[in-house]
């Protein structure tokens, strides 16, 4: 297409404007700096033309006519007049209509001060109403769910919230009811607006009709200060953090074209409550007596000064190194920190202490080389119209809410074909082109058939539990769309099985990807979805065994790094599982936990328990005294999101800024500063005084981040994507062996739900109660086989444990499979995991 064809020339109020083909007049005008008032129009949703506020004079050669600018696409030569008398009269009329039944209770309305209706009433409209009749009345705010209140008197029926629920979130649970001037937005009886994304409706409501429980009556907009930042989730959602009197009061999504399009999940949006919790750590803690006196022999955690805590920590590390060598010091966690925090901890561990027993993941993700050794996709690439997305990951709706919204939009509106290569249905199943729900542990066989061109059914006529015909059809669909990008959403679909099965599946896919990528086609790339906010940053910063900052290995990048750091570990260390095993065997003297809770998160709780109780000194740096930190000997209070500056890396490798707006509680400090201090105590002066200085060193030393200036990251709306990687994924020589399942057992799939037992959710009063109660989910077909009825309380028995819980039916779980959430607050599925087995098989017994 030539340049001329991509521009549509129109005039707006006499000024020439270059519009994009197909663009709405309202959008073209706004880009040209002419604001057209509107209420219902939202650039991320379909136009509905309901409010009629954006009506302007549009002349397409047949004379000026009033038309809604949110629904008229630009055409060559179009003349738009937003100031004509006719336009003003129509807009004034609409505004008067909208205000007829509006209660004008602005003085007690949360929206007052940031209300489009209020603003436009100031700018347009007659200023005085001619309406003297009784206004419409409804019961004042009614809850539409646990987080959002609806005031129908304030509502101007713009259809934004209802459209969001239907079009964007796919949860059409709030709708218009009744008609004419009695029209109202409401939920259906006994069907609350139970959506993970309901908070977005509050943000896009153009009046104060929808208010969020955590923010109601907390502040007036003019009292808020704000900074733009990056929410610490793997998607790196862009947010505005708003605070008043040194307290964070609200997160609002920012419409970042590359990432979250302005949306946030309720979990993230309302998590600020948890950050302000009374339970936050405010001072360093050390072991002491019940009277609060520091004493290494004591069993209590007592308050201490930073100096005391740092000295004790440094001493313990020094003794461990002297006694058993640097490998007796290990670091777990760090995936929730900023890149700068991670880098300094990595340098402390690998460059000063000299241990490579470092892992940011808790055996609940994927090996670092699988993540960093793949060609990396961006979200926009994955959402390319007409492309293909292969889901080899846990349910994005539960774990990566905004990615789910982007993928959903791509599939529903842009013709992206979605192929589920998962052990059970996900939130995207309804719109998936192919649902290849395989037996747990058999993803690799399906992946091989999918891209290998060799469809050979097994003895049961299927491939890994998926019908061979479905696999063949999906394979053909992939081949048909090979001229468009293929993106694998890659994560750990189930924590009840070894990561090895996923690695095997990746090994099958990577060959195909290399083939495609070599052919000059858009090719195939991977989008890693792992748990915890900045886990991708942690891998980039070298918080994994065998890695150094900058996506390089000890072997490759070691010599260069040793020159700057002084030294690096000589051999790769152990991952989280290896570290905990070593600790259980008494080989770890000092364990440093960076916002990590192995007792709560490591898939094998018993191993974590034994390990933590066998470590001489546990040093924890955390926001909360989580169950593992409670076992620590030295606890550092860390600054969290919005309490410190830094950068964040999302699943694309996109680096964006995080900014500070409030002070940390008590004497809590940023992790980079804690690590720098600890290093100083150990005799190494990093010289870091600010996170910016840390970044400068990263940009100097980390190969993949070389020359990525902080200025570029800071000034660009969408940050900077680091794409280089020298890590090569080498497929394992042998497939992870799959034990057969006996006829009486169900094989377990376990993944996370959005609302969980996690510390942050449980510290946020609005979110804590939203975690669903635990139930075992089984295919309806298996009920008769097992001999129970849906809803029955059963006893579930594995090799190592058993528990009682209800069992419910869901056809989204394949036959022979059972699903059970990983992170329920009430029942812990890990009690059923056998640490020595690669899968978990269950039997169901009636009670």
């Amino acid at each position: 297409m030539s340049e001329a064809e991509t521009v549509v020339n129109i005039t707006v109020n006499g000024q020439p404007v270059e519009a994009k083909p197909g663009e709405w007049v309202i959008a073209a005008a706004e880009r040209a700096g002419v604001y057209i008032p509107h209420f219902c129009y939202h650039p991320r949703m379909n136009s509905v033309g309901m409010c009629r506020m954006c009506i302007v004079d549009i002349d397409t050669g047949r004379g000026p006519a009033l038309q809604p600018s949110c629904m008229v696409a630009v055409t060559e030569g179009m003349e738009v007049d937003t100031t004509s008398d006719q336009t003003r009269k129509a807009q004034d009329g609409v505004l008067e209509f909208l205000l007829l039944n509006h209660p004008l209770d602005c003085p007690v309305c949360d929206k007052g001060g940031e209300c489009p209706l209020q603003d436009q009433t100031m700018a347009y409209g007659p200023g005085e109403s001619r309406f003297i009749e009784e206004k419409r009345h409804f019961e004042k705010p009614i809850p539409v769910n646990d987080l959002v209140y609806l005031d129908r008197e304030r509502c101007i029926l713009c259809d934004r919230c209802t459209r969001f629920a239907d079009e964007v979130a796919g949860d059409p649970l709030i709708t218009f009811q009744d008609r004419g001037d009695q029209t109202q937005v409401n939920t259906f009886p006994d069907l609350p607006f139970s959506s993970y994304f309901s908070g977005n409706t509050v943000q896009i409501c153009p009046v104060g009709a929808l208010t969020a429980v955590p923010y109601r009556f907390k502040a007036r907009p003019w009292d808020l200060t704000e900074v733009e930042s990056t929410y610490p989730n793997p998607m790196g959602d862009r947010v505005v953090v708003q605070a008043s009197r040194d307290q964070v009061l609200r997160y609002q999504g920012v419409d970042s074209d590359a990432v979250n399009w302005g949306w946030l999940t309720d979990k993230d949006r309302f998590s600020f409550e948890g950050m302000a919790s009374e339970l936050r750590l405010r001072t360093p803690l050390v072991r002491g007596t019940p009277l609060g006196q520091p004493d290494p022999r004591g069993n209590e955690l007592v308050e201490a000064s930073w100096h005391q805590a740092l000295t004790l920590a440094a001493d313990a590390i020094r003794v461990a190194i002297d006694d058993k060598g640097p490998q007796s010091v290990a670091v777990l966690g760090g995936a929730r920190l900023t890149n700068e925090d991670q880098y300094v901890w990595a340098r402390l561990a690998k460059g000063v202490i000299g241990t490579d027993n470092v892992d940011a993941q808790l055996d609940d993700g994927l090996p670092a080389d699988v993540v960093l050794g793949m060609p990396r996709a961006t979200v926009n690439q994955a959402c390319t119209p007409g492309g293909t997305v292969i889901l080899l990951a846990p349910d994005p709706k539960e774990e990566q809410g905004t990615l789910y919204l982007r993928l959903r939009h791509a599939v529903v509106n842009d013709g992206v074909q979605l192929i589920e290569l998962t052990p059970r249905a996900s939130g995207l199943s309804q719109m998936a082109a192919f649902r290849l729900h395989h037996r747990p542990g058999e993803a690799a066989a399906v992946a091989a058939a999918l891209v290998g061109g060799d469809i050979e059914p097994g003895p049961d006529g299927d491939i890994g539990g998926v019908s061979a015909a479905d696999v063949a059809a999906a394979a053909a669909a992939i081949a048909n769309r090979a001229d468009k990008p293929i993106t694998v959403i890659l994560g750990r679909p189930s924590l009840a099985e070894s990561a090895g099965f996923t690695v095997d599946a990746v090994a099958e896919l990577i060959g195909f990807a290399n083939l495609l990528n070599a052919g000059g086609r858009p090719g195939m790339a991977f989008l890693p979805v792992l748990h915890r906010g900045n886990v991708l940053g942690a891998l980039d910063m070298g918080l994994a065994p065998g890695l150094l900052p900058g996506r390089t290995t000890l072997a490759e990048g070691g010599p260069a790094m040793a020159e700057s750091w002084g030294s690096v570990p000589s051999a790769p260390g152990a991952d989280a599982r290896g570290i905990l095993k070593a600790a259980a065997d008494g080989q770890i003297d000092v364990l440093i936990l960076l916002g990590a809770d192995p007792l709560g998160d490591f898939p094998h709780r018993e191993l974590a328990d034994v390990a933590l109780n066998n470590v001489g000194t546990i040093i924890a740096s955390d926001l909360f005294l989580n169950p593992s930190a409670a076992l620590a000997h030295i606890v550092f209070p860390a600054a969290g999101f919005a309490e410190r500056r830094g950068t964040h890396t999302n699943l694309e490798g996109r680096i964006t800024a995080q900014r500070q707006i409030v002070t940390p509680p008590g004497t809590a400090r940023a992790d980079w500063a804690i690590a720098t201090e600890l290093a100083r105590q150990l005799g190494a002066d990093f010289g870091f005084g600010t996170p910016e200085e840390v970044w400068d060193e990263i940009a100097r030393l980390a190969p993949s981040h070389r020359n990525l200036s902080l200025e570029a990251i800071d000034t660009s709306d969408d940050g900077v994507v680091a794409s280089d990687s020298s890590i090569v994924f080498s497929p394992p020589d042998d497939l992870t062996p799959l034990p057969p399942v006996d006829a009486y057992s169900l094989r377990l799939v376990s993944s996370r739900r959005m609302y969980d037992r996690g510390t942050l959710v449980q510290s946020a009063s609005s979110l804590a109660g939203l975690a669903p109660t635990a139930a075992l989910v089984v295919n309806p077909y298996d009920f008769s086989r097992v001999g129970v009825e849906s809803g029955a309380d059963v006893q579930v028995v594995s090799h190592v444990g058993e528990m009682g819980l209800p069992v419910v039916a869901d056809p989204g779980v394949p036959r022979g499979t059972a699903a059970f959430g990983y992170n329920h607050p009430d029942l812990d599925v890990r009690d059923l995991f056998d640490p020595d087995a690669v899968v978990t098989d269950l039997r169901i017994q009636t009670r």
Partner: protein
Amino acid sequence: MSTPAAQDLRIITSRFDVEDGHTLAGYERTGGYAGLRRAMEMAPADVHGEVRTASLLGRGGAGFPAGVKWGFCPPGVWPRYLVVNGDESEPGTYKDRLLMERDPHQLIEGCLIACYALGLSQCFLYVRGEMAHAQERLAAALNEAYEAGYVGANVLGAKDFSVDITLHWGAGAYIVGEETALIESLEGNRGMPRLKPPYFPASIGLYGKPTIVNNVETLANLPWIVSNGGAAFAAMGAESSTGTRVFAVSGHVVSPGVFEVPFGTTTFRDIIFDSRYAGGLHPGRSLKTFIPGGASAPWFFEEHLDIPLEKATVDKAGSMLGSGAIVVMDDTTDVVRACHNVVRFFARESCGKCTPCREGTSWLEMILSRILAGQGRPQDLDLLMDVCDNISPGINWPPRQTTICPLGPSAVSPIASALERFRGEFEAYLPATAVSVTTASGVAS
């Protein structure tokens, strides 16, 4: 309502006097399904050609030529659907109801002919929810027609022509008479008009597929057109309004009813005053005003009586023939009450989608109610006109539509007509001295 004693020419109301005309036996005895048989002897394109030749204008209100509308389906996009708009709800209009009650098979035959001409195999017959009798009659007739092999697989044994007709009852919303709102309702959604473009469901309609939406009366004409030829149909009536047309006359006339008259050559005076039709006003009364084409239409007066019932001429005179409903008001009519009655209807029936209609129509009704209650203020009359102007900028006819559908501007018509002609009657309702109006927020004067 009386059955007309004698009429010149009746094409589609010919069975209104046949007692069992609604049954298959009665229908077949009086020549029923001959049109279908005739059509099936012709090539589908030729059937379409006859309809084009007939210049059959849509009888639903907009008056768009049916043969042309049929040609709007984008080529190569299948399946396509036929949807019959039987949601007749315009106040004063009841011709389709009688066509469905008295001659259901004629409509079914019309549907079959349309499906044959267009190669369709699925037809949806949407009947207004309140029309219980019509629903019963249609359901019974459809059962008979299925039984007799006229509808269903292999119509009349044809190898390659099968049609299913699905009945659907509305849930009681005037706006569903608008074809895109009807499609929404048929799909199970709220009956709200769709955004235009696309202007015609023929390109994107039911379930996103090309859809022909025709009015009951339009389709009821097809059996006669196919049997007698499009040219014979075109020979009747005026040059630009061919055939016959069914009008429903109500109000202050001696014999209100449904009358089929030659389209375009009969005048309003004929149909209101002729003894073959409505039979004039009651003795001693004089004509005050009449609505020429359903409640949406601007009102006509004495001087418009000699205008022929012809689309173009009525349009030119500033109103519309619309749905074929003529409502006559004589000199005993309280114009303000009449006006309030019509406006109240539109306020209740506004779907609530776009602001001017949702808020404006109910405001108009509130003001009129207040005036009727003796609480009017002198400025209220100008306020009424200005609110009308904000709903329908310029208060022109046809309206310069700035709302999604024409419902909002429809509510403007009676007020604009009545206030212009009978302002004195409105003023008479205003109290002699200024009143204080008690409102929720205090007192306004």
